[in-house]
Structures are given as C-alpha cells and as structure tokens.
C-alpha cells in the first residue's frame, strides 16, 4: 500500500476499497516507525490528521468528495497552516501556531488532501543539505550518512521513504529539484507566478516558487493541478486560465528536440553523475527525441548573481522577525533596539545570519549599484541566454547537481563550498523558468542521480509529458530505499 502512487491511492479511495482514515492510519504508523531515524517531519499531530481524514470519509459517503480526496500528504514547514506549528525550520518561529492557511494549503484542503505532518527544511529555506534546520538534519533514506539535499529535504526524504505519497515544497535556487535528485524522487518547480506565494514564508520573493514532490511525474501533474492557480493576495500571482497539467502526459516524444548545454557537462561534473545522465539521454533518443548541443555561456555567473539577489531580498523579508508581533522574543534586553538585536541573534541560525548580513551590505549606502544592480543585470543576461537556447530546442536537459548527495557534515564548515553545488539549478530561478528533477539512476556510491528538465515559460505540461514518457519505459522512479 505504501509504495502506491497518488494516482493509485486516489483510485482506491474513490472505489471505497480503503477509507481516508485507514490510509492515514497506515502512513502515521510508518511515520512513527521511521521518522525518529530520518527526522523528515517536524510536527505530527495524529488527532488533527485523523479528524481531516474523517471529514473526507464523511464527504465521500455524502457523494461530495473530489477526485483526490483522502490522499495524504506532508507540507513543507514553510507553508502557513492554520492550527499547525509553522516553524520554517527556525527557532524564531518555534512557538508560532499559524492563524491562517497559505493559498497552497487552502487549495489542498479544498481538494480533500489529508495532512500527515509538516516537513523539516533548512531554516527559512536557506541551504542545500537540510543541516541548517533548528530541528536537526534530515537523513537521506538511501544512506543515513548522506544529506537529503535542501531546502525541501524533509519533503523529499518523506516521499522517498514512503512516509507520504506526495509532498509540497518550495524552490528558490534549487530547493525542490536538488533534494528530489538526492532522494531519487520526482519534483517540479513551476514557472514563477504559477503557484501563489500567499502564506508561504518569504525568503527571496522574486525567486521563491512552490511546487510538488512525488514518486512520479504523473503525480506531480496531479498535485500541481491542486497547487497552481491565480490568487489575488499574491501580487506576483499570474492571472491565467486554469490548466490541466496531465493533459499531455501520454503525447509521443518523436521529434522532441532536447538541448544539452555544454556548460552543464563541463569540468566539475562527476563521472558517475555524467554516466547516469548520458544513459537517460540515450533512452530519450530511443523514444524518438533528437539531441542538439546548446550553450548557456554565463552559467557560472548564476552563482554570484544569486548570492547577491537572494540575500538582498532575504535581508528585507526577514526584517519582519523582530520579536514584536509573532515568534521568538529574547528574555533579556536593555531597550527596544537591544530587544531586536538579541531576539534576532537568538532566533536565527548562522546561515540565515550570514545571508541577512550579506544582503544588508549589498543594499547599504554606496554599494547598491556595484552589487544589487549589477546582479540584476547579470540576471537579465542569464534569462536571455535561456531564450536563445529555446530557439534551438523544446526542452533543456542536464544534471541537477554536479555530484550525488554528500555526507552529513562534509560541507557545512564552508558555506561557499555548498553554494558551488547549486551551479545547475540557480539559473532557472533567476530566469523564472520551470525546472524539474527526474530519477535516472545511481552514482558509484549508490546514491540517486537526478536528470534536470528545463522548459520555457508555462511549458510544465510538456515537461511533465517528457518525464512521464521516460518513466513509462524505465523503473528508477519505482525504486525505494530499504528501511
């Protein structure tokens, strides 16, 4: 039962072969058994979960349940959820019980999805290893000595370990795609503006985007159908017609033009990752796709550009945590300014502090043009490079990461060493494009490898089709870690 996909579970629920309460109970037992070693979830609340499941069963009995009603999921702890602790992985919000729902949570609630718990994450979504959580690191289900990736590491680990069939996540610089790759699951970051950021705790507002993590591309499409949609409470939410992201899943791939950016296969890419990616590309040729070499010449500049823009926006966004309206307040202080300073010193971890300090500096008097404005100009260059590439191909493919998951503790002494691992994912966020990760094998250390698929704006349905067809002829997505 626990290896079933969202699609299969939804069918069984609809056929009344299993109730939402029975299903939630099975997953809760799995969580009880495995979460102590994985630390994938921060909060579990059996009563709340079962109450949600009972309500769905009652609705189904009354003939009022939607197609996905009763399927359980976990929400990344960045999405505000009424009545649940919404910590964002931070001591700053350890005492914060959200008084409202994020738009994404609201949509999931309306669809009858049942919350199993709240997924661990890097504090305020800042990190690539999930070691920056106030609640401790998440372990990679494939190898408990490995990181699960970040920042949506708890979401990815939960799906990989079958603690939940699907999870929500967010991606600012790779935070859905990289943990999906490290945990051997499928995840998609939609075009910027497709999923509402209302109630999604802000890190870098011009880059943040929510999206689904699941075993399969088909499940990602089904959950994205729920998560996406216009929301007037997010000023950057796009007013577009509702799409069915499953509509093109079965379309044939003959004639598909795949662009391989030479910079994504250059020095720095580990041989075992390259091998798995090459094998996946060969599979696509068999499916009728053509491969063309393309160039994204400024790929390397994505790192400095991102590490100016994201900290700058973070320094502004996180100024709201001041110990006045919600969250942590220091116990001892000498006056108002000292209260702010002590509260923030105690409430934030060091990676968050470093990014706030970096952002504060680049926005400070006399430095704005040299850093922030320059980074925004490079952002334009990077976005233009992608458009030139899409003149030659339908989708871009390459690795999600240069290496498979590293060991816990291996890279956290030097923040810059970890930043460099984001090289293939950051450009997508800067350009606002959709990107996804699909499991395509294992590295020499038996840790998963993810293939990145990058599409042009609003081409999610096409990308999901490209991933789905691959999953019809391969079985990497069905592999589960032995736990």
């Amino acid at each position, binding site marked *: 039962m626990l290896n079933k996909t969202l699609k299969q579970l939804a069918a069984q629920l609809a056929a009344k072969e299993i109730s939402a309460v029975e299903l939630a109970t099975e997953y809760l037992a799995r969580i009880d058994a495995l979460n102590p070693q994985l630390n994938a979830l921060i909060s579990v609340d059996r009563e709340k979960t079962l109450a949600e499941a009972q309500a769905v069963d009652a609705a189904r009995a009354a003939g009022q349940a939607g197609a996905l009603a009763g399927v359980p999921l976990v929400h990344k702890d960045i999405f505000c959820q009424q009545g649940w602790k919404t910590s964002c992985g931070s001591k700053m919000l350890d005492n914060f019980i959200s*008084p409202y729902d994020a738009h994404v949570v609201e949509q999931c609630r309306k669809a009858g999805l049942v919350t199993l718990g709240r997924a661990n994450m890097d504090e305020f979504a800042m990190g690539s290893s999930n070691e920056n959580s106030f609640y401790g690191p998440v372990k990679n289900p494939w190898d408990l000595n490995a990181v699960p990736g970040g920042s949506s590491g708890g979401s990815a680990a939960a799906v990989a370990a079958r603690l939940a069939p699907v999870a929500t996540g967010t991606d600012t610089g790779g935070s859905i795609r990289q943990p999906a790759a490290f945990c051997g699951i499928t995840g998609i970051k939609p075009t910027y503006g497709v999923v509402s950021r209302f109630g999604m705790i802000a890190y870098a507002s011009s880059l943040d985007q929510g999206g689904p993590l699941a075993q399969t591309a088909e499940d990602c499409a089904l959950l994205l159908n729920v998560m996406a949609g216009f929301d007037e409470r997010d000023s950057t939410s796009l007013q577009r017609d509702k799409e069915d992201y499953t509509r093109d899943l079965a379309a044939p791939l003959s004639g598909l033009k795949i662009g391989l950016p030479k910079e994504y296969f250059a020095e720095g890419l580990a041989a075992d990752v390259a091998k798995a990616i090459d094998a996946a590309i060969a599979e696509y040729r068999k499916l009728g796709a053509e491969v063309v070499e393309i160039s994204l010449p400024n790929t390397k500049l994505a790192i400095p550009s991102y590490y100016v823009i994201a900290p700058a926006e973070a320094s502004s966004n996180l100024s709201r945590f001041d110990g006045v309206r*919600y969250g942590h307040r220091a116990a001892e202080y000498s006056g*108002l300014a000292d209260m702010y300073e002590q509260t*923030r010193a105690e409430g934030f971890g060091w990676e968050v502090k*470093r990014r706030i*300090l*970096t952002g*504060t500096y680049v926005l400070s008097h006399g430095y704005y043009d040299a850093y922030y404005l320059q980074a925004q100009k490079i*952002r334009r260059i990077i976005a233009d490079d992608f458009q030139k590439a899409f003149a030659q191909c339908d989708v871009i493919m390459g690795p999600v990461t240069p290496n498979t998951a590293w060991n816990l503790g291996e890279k956290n002494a030097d923040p810059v060493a970890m930043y460099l691992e984001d090289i293939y994912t950051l450009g997508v966020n800067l350009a606002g494009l959709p990107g996804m990760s699909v499991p395509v094998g294992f590295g020499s250390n038996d840790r998963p490898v993810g293939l990145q698929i990058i599409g042009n704006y609003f081409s999610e349905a096409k990308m999901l089709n490209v991933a789905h067809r691959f999953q019809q002829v391969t079985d990497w997505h069905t592999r589960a870690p032995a736990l």
Partner: protein
Amino acid sequence: MSLTIDDVRRIAKLARIAVTDDELAATQQQLNRIFGLIEEMRAVDTTGIEPMAHAQDVMLRLREDMATAPDRRAEWQAVAPAVENGLYLVPKVIE
C-alpha cells in the same frame, strides 16, 4: 574587496543582529569568503543591459478601494509575545 571587523560590526548593527566579540572574527572570515565568490560578477561588462527585477513583466493589479479583510485582530495577537488592550507591547522607547 574585503570586509574589516568594523564593517562587520556596522552591518550587524544595520541588520539588528547582535554579534558578540567572540563571533566577529569567524563572521568576518565567512562573509569574506562569500564576497570573494560575489567578486567574480563585478568585472562583467553590463553596459546597456536593463536590470531584471522580476521574471514576469506584469503590471501591479489595481482593485476597488474597499475593505476586504475581516477583523481578526484577536487571532493575530494571540501569537504575539506581549499584548495589552489590543496593542503590541515593546520596551519603553521614550523616557
């Protein structure tokens, strides 16, 4: 470019984050590593390039000027560290 200890103190002050004397040197060193990485970007010739603030060039929407949010003050204030009579309490700022 490299940040001095005084630069770090000044930024920490602007960011309203207390950094103790013991933490200053390590913070300075790590920030300088980050700025070392960022430095690569500064040499790029970006003459004539329009800065990109956002992925989608959309206009901000306007709406009717009318109240839409219901009064939920009690719920918002239930999560605050200190409130009294509907007001948020902070340390005394005027003697």
